[in-house]
Structures are given as C-alpha cells and as structure tokens.
C-alpha cells in the first residue's frame, strides 16, 4: 500500500517530545549495528556505553562534569537558533573563553587574591562573547552569513590557542610540551564531591537553565528574539530591531560557550592545552536540537550526550573500540532526530486508490 506524507492540521505535541526519545533509541540501535560490523558484541558494547557509567558514583560525577560544557554551549546555541541565528562556532568561542580566563589565571594565579576566580569567569564569558561579536558585526554591518563566519573563526581560534601554547604561554618547565603552566589552586574551580573531578562549574550550568527559560518565555527581550527568529518580517513590522537581536543572540551564545571553555580550563584540565574540548561545541548543536531548543529539554539532552562521551571513553578502555565510534553515533542521533521531527508537522497516510 503506497504511503504519502500529509500535513497535520496542528503540530503534534506528543511527537515533539517523542521524537528525541525515538531518535535516541534508533541511534543506539544504529550504534549496535556499527559495533557488530566492527566485530564487537553489540549488547556488551551498548551496555558499556549506556549503562556502566551510571552504576558508580564516580561515573555519575563524571557525567555531570561532561554535561557542564555541553549544557552551557547548547543553551547558548538554542537561544541563538530561536533568534534565527546559526552559531556553529561554539567550539571557537569556548576556546577563546578558555584563553581569556586562563590568561588571568596565568598572570595572577598563586597570589591568593579573592577576585581571581570571579575575574576568570567574567573574562571567560567576555572572551567568548567578544569572539562571537565578530560574526555579529560582520552580519549586521556587511550581511555576511554567520554560519560560515562563526565556523571559520572557530578554526582561527584553535590555531590561536595552538600558537599560544607552543609559543608565548608554553610552560618553561614542561619539557617543551605544548601546554601552559598548571593553574595555581586559587585559580581552580572548587571541587564539589571529595575525591572526584566534579567542580562548581556544574552549578553555573544548572543556573543557566532556568535563567534561559525565563529570558525566552517571560521577558520582552526573549519575545523579541523569538519573533525575529520565527518571522523576521513580522519582527520588522512590530519594530523589533533585527540587528539588536543578532548582537544579543550571538553574544549571549558566545558568553555561555566562553564560560564553558573557562570551566574546562579551570576545572578538569587545570591548564591550557592545544585542544580544550573534544568537540563539545559541535556536539552541543545536536544537544540543542535534541532538547527541542528549550532549556529544560536541553538539560536532559546534555546528560544523554555526556553519557555518550563517557561511555565512549569506557569503550575505548575496556574494549579498545575507537573513540570515533561515538562521533558516528552522535551524527546518527541528529539524523534520526531530524527524520522523526518531520512527523511533528506531518503524518503518514495511505494513498487512496485513484479513479481515472
């Protein structure tokens, strides 16, 4: 019986929230197929990937640790997407946040000032925001599309960090390894659970969830942003400035990504290295969509993505599976999500037999 897609009269609320679950299940199934194709027992691999990390306290704190940068970046990306902006350069903004905040740590760390950490947080957010302000300027002033400029500037930021840790900021006692000095204790985020790596940055990320929700749902600024994103011509008619929306959306996204970078530098890493993130900035795009661009949904999606990262590391350790396998699963996750999202607005119907 031939099938056909047809528009639903109203978008399906159920499908809106069912779709990410469906996507996760399908991606897990797809992952199982990949593991089987590589010659591993798919059930063992999937258990290692999705269940084992959750069975220990250490695993749970590591989950929170990995979810922190994902959550921060994804919330920023979601706010930008709601404003109609494709910020795919969170990786670069994260890097610049780490550089700006890390610079303060390297310059003033160890002197015992109370203001070191607050200054690092501010600098991290400012660094990310400043990096995102460049595409905002290029878009509002020259109409250059942010999707390419944010990404290109990502590559530039990573090269810039590479130059810093190979050159001016290299640890003089580090046997020429391309990395900075370790941050002093007063420039490190406090650990929350004794004996684990879970640090206070997770609280910042959790705080960002209700704040972002309130911004989007309860403020005039958020209403304007959403209007600009959904219907630019309606926004213009209402008198909402698209340029102001671009600045706000991109700078906010950059600030959150910068904060994420600083939390990595002043958290689990404790120094500057050539790569501050295993692709959190890109994975956060998936997280944002998986979480329906809604802050509370993103919280759940960030935990799932953190689990994939964490499980991927365990797979590498216990089964010698390449870490790239998790990248494949991430890609499949987004594909399945986009495919099932089609059924929010549409449904499958049988084609009636045609009478000629």
């Amino acid at each position, binding site marked *: 019986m031939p099938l056909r897609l047809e528009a639903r009269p109203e*978008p399906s609320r159920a499908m809106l929230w069912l779709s990410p679950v469906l996507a996760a299940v399908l991606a897990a199934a797809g992952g199982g197929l990949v593991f089987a194709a590589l010659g591993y027992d798919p059930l063992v691999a999937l258990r290692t990937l999705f269940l084992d990390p959750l069975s220990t306290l250490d695993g749970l704190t590591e989950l929170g640790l990995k979810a922190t940068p994902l959550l921060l970046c994804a919330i920023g990306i979601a706010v930008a997407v709601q404003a109609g902006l494709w910020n795919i350069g969170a990786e670069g903004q994260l890097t610049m946040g780490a550089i700006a905040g890390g610079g303060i740590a390297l310059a003033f760390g160890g002197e015992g000032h109370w203001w070191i950490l607050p200054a690092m947080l501010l600098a991290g957010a400012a660094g990310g925001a400043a990096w995102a302000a460049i595409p905002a300027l290029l878009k509002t002033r020259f109409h250059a599309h942010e999707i390419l400029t944010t990404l290109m500037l990502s590559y530039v930021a990573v090269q810039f960090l590479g130059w810093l840790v190979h050159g001016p900021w290299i640890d003089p006692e580090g046997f020429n390894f391309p990395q900075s000095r370790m941050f002093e204790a007063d420039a490190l985020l406090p650990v929350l659970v004794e004996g684990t790596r879970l640090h206070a940055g997770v609280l910042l990320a959790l705080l960002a969830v209700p704040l972002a929700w309130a911004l989007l749902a*309860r403020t005039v600024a958020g209403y304007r942003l959403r209007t600009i994103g*959904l219907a630019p011509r309606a926004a213009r008619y209402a008198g909402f400035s698209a340029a102001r929306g671009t600045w706000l959306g991109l700078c906010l996204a950059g600030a959150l990504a910068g904060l994420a970078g600083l939390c990595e530098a002043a958290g689990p890493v404790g120094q500057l290295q050539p790569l501050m993130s295993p692709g959190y900035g890109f994975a956060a795009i998936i997280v944002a969509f998986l979480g329906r661009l809604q802050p509370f949904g993103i919280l759940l999606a960030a935990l799932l993505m953190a689990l994939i990262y964490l499980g991927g590391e365990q797979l590498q350790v216990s089964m010698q599976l390449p870490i790239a396998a998790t990248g494949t699963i991430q890609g499949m996750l987004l594909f399945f999500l986009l495919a099932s999202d089609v059924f929010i607005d549409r449904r499958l119907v049988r084609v009636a037999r045609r*009478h000629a």
Partner: protein
Amino acid sequence: MSPTPPRLALTGIVKRYGATLANDEVALSVAPGEIHALLGENGAGKSTLMKIVYGVVAPDAGEIAWDGRPVAIADPNAARRLGIGMVFQHFSLFETLTVAENIALGLGSTRPLEALAAEIRQVAARYGLAVDPGRHVHHLSVGERQRIEILRCLLQQPRLLILDEPTSVLTPQEVEGLFAMLRRLAAEGCSVLYISHKLEEIRALCSAATVLRAGRVAARCDPRAETAESLAEMMIGGRVVRTTRAARQPGPPCLVVDRLTLAPEEPFGTTLRDIALELRAGEILGIAGVAGNGQAELLAALAGERRSAAARIALDGRPVGHLGPAARRARGLAFIPEERLGRGAIADYSLAENALLTRLDARTAPRGLLDPGAVRALATRLIARFGVRAAGIAARGRSLSGGNMQKFIVGREIDAGPRVLLAAHPTWGVDIGAAVAIHQALLDLAAAGAGILVVSEDLDELLGLADRIAVLAGGRLSPPVPVAETGAEAIGLLMGSAPGDAQRMADAAAA
C-alpha cells in the same frame, strides 16, 4: 442543443485534504467555444478543481471526459498534450530567466531559443500582445507578466484555456483588452474556463457559470440573466449583509506627508517620488493602483519600517519620519499589513503571543517582563470583541482561516485605539462575511474620529469605503479626488498612466 460533446466534462470529482473535502462530487461541463465562469468564495474549491483538470493534483475519485472520451490527466504535460492551457493566479514565471526561456520551459519542446523567439513575436502580434522575448521577467510589470503566461498557452494552440483570477492585478483598461482577446479566442473555437469572484466581470464576459460553495456545486446559471446580487447569494448561500456608514465631518489633518522621496531597498522595488498627502481625522482615504507601483514602499515609509527625514512625515502635527514602527505606534499609529501570516501574525505563535506583537506596553509587559495574565486577557478580549472563530487563545496562528486571522489582526490594531490606521488590502482573500465585518469595523473607527488610509487593488472596495481616492502609479501619488466626483473608469486611467502623466490624469479624473 448541438450534438457535439462538451470539450471538458467532469463528473463526481472528489478531493480530500486531511479532514477537509476540497471537492465533493463536483460536476462541470464546458462546451466548445464557450466562456464558462467558475465562481465561488475563497476556499470553495475552485483552485483545487482547476489543479485537477491541469494534472497538478490527482483527484481521489471522479471522471474526466475530453471531447466525449474519458481521459486520465497524469501531469501538466498530459494536460498540455490534450490542448489545455492554464494561466495561474500566482504566475508560474521564473524571475531571473528571459521571456523566451520562460516560454520554452512552458512548452516542453526542444526548439532552439532563436526560432522560438521569432514564433513568439509572430503570435504576440496576431493577438495584439506586445512582448520582447529577450527581456528578463523581473523587469516586467504585472500586466506584462500575465501576457507572457497567456502567450505561453497560445503558442500551443490550446483548445481549453483556464484563467485563475486573471483580472485581480489589471487596470480596468487592461481588463478590457484581456476580454477582447478572450472573446476572439472563443470565436476561434477555444473554450475558456474563467475563475473569478468579480461578479460584474463575469456578467460581462461569460455565457455559463458553475458556482461552488464549500467544495460542492451550489448552482449553475447563465450569468447574463442574473444580477451581481443574485450571484453573490449563490456563492455565500444567504443574503449579503451590507455595511452601514454614518455621515461624518472630517476633522483636522492627522497624518501629513510632505514631498517624500525614497529609493527602494529591494532590487526591483519602486522609488517613491515626491509623495504628498494629507489624511484628516474621521476620513477614509483610499490609495488605488496596481501592486508594484510603490504600495509596499509607501506603507513601509508611513509605518516606520523605512525611515526618512523627520519632517517628511507628521503624525498629529509632530514630525515622525525618523522614528521606527514601535515609536510611531506609541504616538497613535496602527498598521494592518498585507500579508497575514509571517508579517501581521506568526503561524507558530498562539493567539495570545500574536496579540502581543504590536501591544507590548506597560500593562502587558511591565519593566520588560511579560505579564501572562494581562496577555491572556488581551487575547480573550480581541477574540470576543471581533467575533474571531478560533479554538481559544492557545490556538496557533496557522490553525485559523484567512478571514478569522484577518479579523484578529484588524481587531488587534483597532483595539489599540489608534489616531491613524493604515490598512493594506484589508479584505484580500477573505470570505464575504469576514470582509463585511472588517469593512464595518473600519467605518466605525473612522466614525469615532480616526483617520484611515486604505491601500487596495480592489477598486470596488475603495469606491464603497473611501471618502477620497488617490492613485499610486510608478511611485507617484496623484492628488486625491472625492469619491462622489469620480468613478472606476477615471481612476483606471490614472492607474495605467505613465508617471509623468499623473497630474494631467488627475485633472481629467476630477473633471
């Protein structure tokens, strides 16, 4: 009756979109050489039926007979092979291609473009349609584009020509030219299926009519034997309610435009040249003209979406040319834009969120924070006051019919209590019931002392609504003429005039 079978005969056509029946057991028969009207309100199922005939859409059930033989029309190519030509309401032309390329695409032939260009000139000359095959379509006026569409059909020697609302974009004089051409075509034996909701035109042109209502055939008649009123009653299935207007005395000027000249933003926009107008409190001023002559640009400049020098535009005596839409709104200006979804309202927003679009103020959003209770109260009031049929304030914009969405937008702007209201094509594409309600709301607002500027392509609408009418052509605005002293013919001359002729034509219209 002659024994020849009808050129086209439809029986039992059914087409369902989701829950709605667009066509329900529709039957239609067109004789050779006949000009047959297909009549109905928006959403009555006319366009769907024509797409079925042209093979764009497949029917769920029903039969099509061509010259007495049953046929299946799988796609537009099959329709063209039978000899069916179609002129679409929203033209199926490609802006960046040339006239010849456009026609080549429509013919489905592999003739070289040079040979085609010669043929185009020849056929164009025969039917008195002036076109240049080498020009790019985006340079052409709306009337010229329609000629390309018609030419594309004529080059295939059609035996049935379908025209979907062809006159909505033409000046009265261009309409006369079109009718002359259609009559000649019919005399040569080609059948014409003419889709319209303009009743006077149908009475002048067509010798048979099929009336659709809510997807079903409501009536068949000879339009020449009917009145416009009786045809309208067939369309809506009841009596037409009329608007009532109170006599009113215009007050002081509330919106004054002084020598406004503005270059366009869009690549093919119109430059506004030396626009001057004065709108008085309690008055409805109509702006007539064919779309694309500066209407969008003028409205954007008046509403504040385009800024100009402060002194060019004055609202209640204060200069506002430099202000944006929100600031002008705060000073008592309201605007009903042409496009409903995407500009006047947002498809994915609830009615509550849509109410907020132009109503962010100290009550709905104190100190930059939204007050959900106040927003709900506003939306509830708008729905009740203007009789909007919707599932509630949580209903999405896209779930409303065109007429109800427009009532909501018009209501939102009127409810703001504006001193000046700009309305662009306020009843375009809405059903007659909603159109009457919207017209009444505008008349009441004017009676309450607001100045209203209505931009419309529908001359009948302006003649029924406005106190004075000015014509916008080529980016220039003619001086306004009192409605009592002019008529469709005189205004039509202005609409088609070259920019430089505006003043002379205005004098002619007033005379």
